């Protein structure tokens, strides 16, 4: 499925319907996911709950006492007909994230550079150059899955995940980059760390980043 195809609806139990716009990580597909998020917000239908955006899908949750899956599917189909007219969030906010690369802050940087035949500075430059897109947030509260990584530094996850990764760690997994908001176990290749607080339950909104945001990493010197 590509960016222009007819979305596919899948029933997820009696209380949710998933709308799938494609099957590849693609900014145009993800932009359609976010246009549906905006359209649902504008529609503000009673008995519709949260919607969870992901790479190519939107999981729409609703109150089964109020709606059947058929009724919800029909409403979503009508909404999708006009979807491409809805002004979307193609250009979300741009958030700059200062990062200390390498050393104790980025224990996998050296091995990653060696594996690609690059210097440390080249890896940092390639990571800090693009503008990334926050495709979705998941895994733990506030963890952004970002796409747009340069192929030259795309790297598989570590064979053995670490049991503890400090909060603020910036990592690479395949063609994605992400940031661990909370100390947690994980298998991403850790190349740096930010002091920004990605997730604070007492803040409104609690997450620094939202799905659809754009992100740029800014290399800084100093201890993480």
């Amino acid at each position, binding site marked *: 499925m590509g960016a222009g195809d007819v979305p596919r609806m899948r029933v997820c139990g009696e209380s949710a319907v998933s709308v799938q716009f494609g099957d590849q990580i693609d900014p145009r597909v993800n932009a359609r996911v976010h246009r549906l998020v905006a359209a649902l917000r504008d529609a503000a239908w009673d008995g519709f709950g949260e919607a969870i955006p992901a790479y190519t899908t939107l999981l729409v949750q609703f109150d089964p006492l109020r709606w059947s899956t058929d009724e919800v599917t029909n409403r979503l189909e009508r909404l999708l007909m006009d979807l491409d007219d809805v002004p979307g969030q193609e250009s979300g906010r741009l958030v700059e994230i200062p990062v200390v690369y390498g050393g104790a802050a980025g224990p996998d940087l050296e091995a990653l550079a060696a594996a690609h035949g690059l210097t440390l500075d080249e890896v940092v430059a390639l990571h800090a150059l693009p503008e990334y897109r926050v495709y979705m947030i998941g*895994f733990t509260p506030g963890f952004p899955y970002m796409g747009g990584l340069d192929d030259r530094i795309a790297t598989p996850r570590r064979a053995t995940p670490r049991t503890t990764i400090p909060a603020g760690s910036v990592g690479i997994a395949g063609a994605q980059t992400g940031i661990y908001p909370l100390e947690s176990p994980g298998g991403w290749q850790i190349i740096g760390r930010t002091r920004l607080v990605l997730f604070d339950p007492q803040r409104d909104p*609690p997450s620094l980043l939202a799905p659809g945001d754009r992100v740029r990493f800014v290399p800084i010197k100093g201890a993480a």
Partner: protein
Amino acid sequence: MSLRVVSPGFYTSVQDSGRFGFQRFGVPVSGPMDAFAFDAANRLAVNPPGTAAIEFAAAGPELRTEVDCLVALAGVGFALEVDGVAFPAWMAVRAPGGALLRVVAIDGGGWGYLALAGGIHTPPVMGSRATYTRAGFGGLDGRLLQPGDVLPSLPARDAARFAGRMLLPEFRPAYSTAPVVRVVLGPHEEAFTPAGIEAFIGSAYTLTRTADRMGYRLEGAPIQHRAGADILSDGIALGSVQVPGSGQPIVMMSDHQTTGGYTQIGVVARADLPLLAQCQPGVSQVRFRAVTPDEARQAYIMQQAALERGIWQPLEDTAAFAHG
């Protein structure tokens, strides 16, 4: 008004109906494992739906009351002792000030709920009092309860006259150690071979000991994929049945992560999630039965109606009203 924790029991936390509105930021909903028992406890304690209560598993807490209050226990495998006098679950009970409330496990406690008229008033986080221990927020400091903890409540002066209210047995879910759990197939039905789907709905699965508020791992006939277990991560519904490469299903429970990258063969009907939640790790044998989304919806509508109609009110109440 407050309750003091004398001994916490096992996995005891404050839960309300859940933290809604933040799943897009990766924040799980949390809330009760057995939403029916939780709702029943609140109804019996004359609280508004969703009021924060105390959840525990396998072994119940001991609590000291401060003033006269009304409490209600609901769940599977527990009874309530008030200063040594035993009362059954699914009943509203009056407790005097300074009383010792002991929730005792009888023949294998599952998940239990103790609701207090007036509710538990710990500070809400992101609009909810539900405890999410993995990230350490909600409830009391984002953690399980400990001896000496004080749970604040609001006064509920007239509540005591509702003592004796019961949820009649025929209106409760058919809890069992060998439940048949209804499931709506999909969203990734096509990712499995016909034999894989037949295994899932045609054989019994044992609940393993890897079962917590996040997910229940089951073990039984392997569920075969057509071509791999991994998908691009997408949103997960409560009760989704994920099948990783091992072919052994994992049901997503209250603290489940908001997104995941495994194929999902089905979603447990909301009305039957309590049956699954109350299964005993290492013991219970679960069978899944495929139903349509409308059948699952009707089951949930009927269950909510049962909660409404099933509460029996003792006649003394009327007398208490008459005397003012």
